[in-house]
């Protein structure tokens, strides 16, 4: 979790425009504490990479201020920022061996040969690549190159490391393994990591906090569990994980409890998140694994809905049931594949419901 030692990196009212007409980053405010693992997550074009590049110094902010350890760095050139960076395609220098690649940041800092070698060895051992110093990057597999890129970004002991979709080019299994290793390195070195990805799974498993970007703004900044279980708006609900959405109108609103009337006339319970008054349009979001099909498990006097099973997809650990609910053809329910689980068949008509806190009434899109 975030070691709360104050503000280490800060974006203050940062804006970025490439063409002078549209803003790619609109009023970014974000503070990152020392030792935190923060992920910028978002679809392509959402401004996350641009924000990272502004922090690295490869793009200049059109407006606003970026602070590193309390010091404004807008005017500091990238080589003086002392920030380690891992690039999407590793960017290992092809004309140098692995050892020379790692020596490079130390040489440009004028470090002596003995200390260089000690540090290179330590960094290579850290990523379990100790015996590869004499190889060329082209002789390494993707995963090995990734480790070297990581070692190179860490060899000069930066306090802050930026990673721009570093695992994008790896296959699924290797990616999951590297996620674990990066997280482990982060924990053991105590460095601050700003990580950019469009893979929500990666963001959820690795981060202390995730900033979900869309349309040049942070839509929600929260720890992974909050993000998944308590999305703050319909974009986040839609972007993170699978989501069932039911459009409706607010019928009743008392504190954070709301009663929503769906377009087809049914009433459902929901938790009010960003709805403000009766009669407002809303989008109710329910995670597929939180939908209940056993009536006895639902809270008393919960509103139930009619559903007709259209299709059952067997996925091993779970069963995915696609249903027709309140006029929508693709309402998805996930059922654990366990003994005693009620089996459904296509065409079957059932009643479904949920705990009110699992249905979130969000802004209508």
């Amino acid at each position, binding site marked *: 979790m975030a070691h709360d030692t104050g503000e280490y990196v800060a974006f203050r009212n940062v804006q970025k425009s490439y063409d002078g007409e549209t803003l790619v980053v609109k009023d970014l405010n974000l503070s990152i504490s020392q030792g935190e693992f923060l992920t910028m997550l978002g679809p392509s074009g959402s401004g996350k990479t641009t924000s990272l590049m502004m922090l*690295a110094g490869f793009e200049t902010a059109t407006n606003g201020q970026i602070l590193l350890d309390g010091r404004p760095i807008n005017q500091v050139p990238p*080589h003086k920022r002392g920030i380690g*960076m891992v*690039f999407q*395609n590793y960017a290992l*220098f092809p*004309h140098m061996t692995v050892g020379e690649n790692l020596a490079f*940041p130390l040489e*440009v800092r004028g470090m002596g040969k003995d200390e260089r070698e000690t540090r290179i060895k330590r960094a290579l051992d850290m990523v379990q690549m100790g015996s590869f110093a004499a190889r060329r990057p082209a002789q390494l597999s993707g995963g090995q190159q990734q480790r070297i890129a990581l070692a190179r970004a860490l060899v000069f002991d930066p306090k802050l490391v930026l990673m721009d979709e570093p695992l994008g080019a790896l296959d699924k299994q290797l990616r999951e393994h590297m996620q674990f290793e990066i997280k482990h390195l982060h924990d053991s070195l105590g460095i601050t990591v700003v990580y950019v990805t469009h893979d929500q799974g990666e963001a959820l498993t690795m981060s202390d906090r995730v900033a979900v970007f869309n349309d040049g703004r942070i839509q929600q900044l929260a720890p992974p569990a909050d993000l998944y279980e308590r999305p703050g708006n319909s974009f986040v609900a839609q972007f993170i994980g699978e989501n069932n959405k039911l459009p409706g109108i607010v019928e009743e609103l008392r504190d954070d409890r709301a009663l929503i009337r769906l377009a087809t006339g049914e009433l459902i319970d929901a938790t009010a998140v960003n709805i403000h008054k009766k009669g407002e349009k809303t989008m109710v979001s329910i995670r597929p694994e939180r939908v209940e099909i056993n009536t006895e498990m639902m809270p008393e006097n919960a509103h139930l809905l009619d559903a007709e099973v259209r299709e059952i997809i067997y996925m091993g650990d779970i069963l995915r049931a696609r249903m027709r609910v309140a006029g929508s053809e693709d309402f998805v329910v996930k059922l654990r594949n366990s003994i005693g689980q009620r089996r459904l068949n296509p065409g079957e008509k059932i009643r479904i419901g949920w705990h009110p806190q699992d249905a979130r009434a969000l802004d209508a899109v």
Partner: protein
Amino acid sequence: MASITQTAVPASSLASEGMPLKIRLARAQARNRRRAFLLVLPLLLFVTLTFVLPIGQMLQRSLYHDGFSAAAPSLGQWFSENPEDIRPDEAGFAALAADLRYMKEQNLAGAAGTRINYNVPGSRSLFTSAARKADDLEAPYRDAILGLDQKWDDPRIWVAMREASSPWTSDFYLTALDIQRGADGTLERVDEHSRVYLALYGKTFLLSGVITVICLVLAFPIAHLLATLPMGKANLLMILVLLPFWTSLLVRTTSWIVLLQGQGVLNSLLVSAGIIGEDGRLALINNQTGTIIVMVHILLPFMVLPIYSVMRVIPPAYARAARSLGATSWTTFRRIYAPQTLPGIGAGVLLVFILAVGYYITPALVGGADGQLFSNQIQFHMTRSNWSQAAALAAMLLAGVLVLYWLYDRLIGIDKLKLG
């Protein structure tokens, strides 16, 4: 384990009919190889006929000239019977007289004289006039021949004839190296004022080097600009780079004359701008400067293209990575960017240098007296029908280029060459 594998034949190496897999594979591949060979056969024939054979012929000509040996069989015999460094005796003059008669019969005096003339200038007429009177010669031949012309007593003539009595000779290479045979047959350097070739050879390589360096200095930023500009602008710039290719070499060269000559556009502009005085007009053409300027212009695309093709595929992430690791922009350029452009630089330098070393039209047109290159000498000998001398000079040029090529391979590695 070992005892089992020794006796067992690996199942995979035997085909179903019992034919070993290796043989079947070889047969299957032989068919493809034959087909591939037939496809390249026309090109192979073309290259052999138009490149390998002419070069072989050229090398042979540089060492072979039978103008004298075919015309003087008796002297050939006399020379082989008598060792080196002997003054011609009566028998020698008798052989000469016999050969002069033979030359007259066969009408070969001109050819023989021309061959000796290469070594001893001014001796062609000696042969033609002596052959004309060959039938009147009577013993004692020494007095009779010396009676025709005292020059026949010149030992240099006899040294030259001895050398030329064999069709295989190193004379043309000696000439190309500014070396001649002295009166006693030993090798010596020619007089200082008539040494031509070695100095010109050196100058040709030096000028080509200068031209190559200027091309590199000019081409590198252009190629970088081309590689980093957005596509549309890069294409426009590329057209400008390639424009010289679309006009004839002759037109380009003459337009440079118009531009650079004493009363030309550039000088007039400088004068009217008051930068230079009317009598201080710069000599930019018909000298070495002209050769350099025009050849740089003509050869520049050959430098730009290979460098550009290499730069285009260097991802910008490398420079960013270097910067993020703490390198200044200069260090990034020197340690990261420039080394990666090396294959393109190597290709461009080699290409431009080799083209420059053999360039002929441009120096001939704009080089004046001191802007001439080695190939102009080759051309000079070709117009004089001294094919052997032209061939020897060309072979020297070829040797120089091959040495450079070898050096390049040793220093950079020819496998790193990238032409596009």
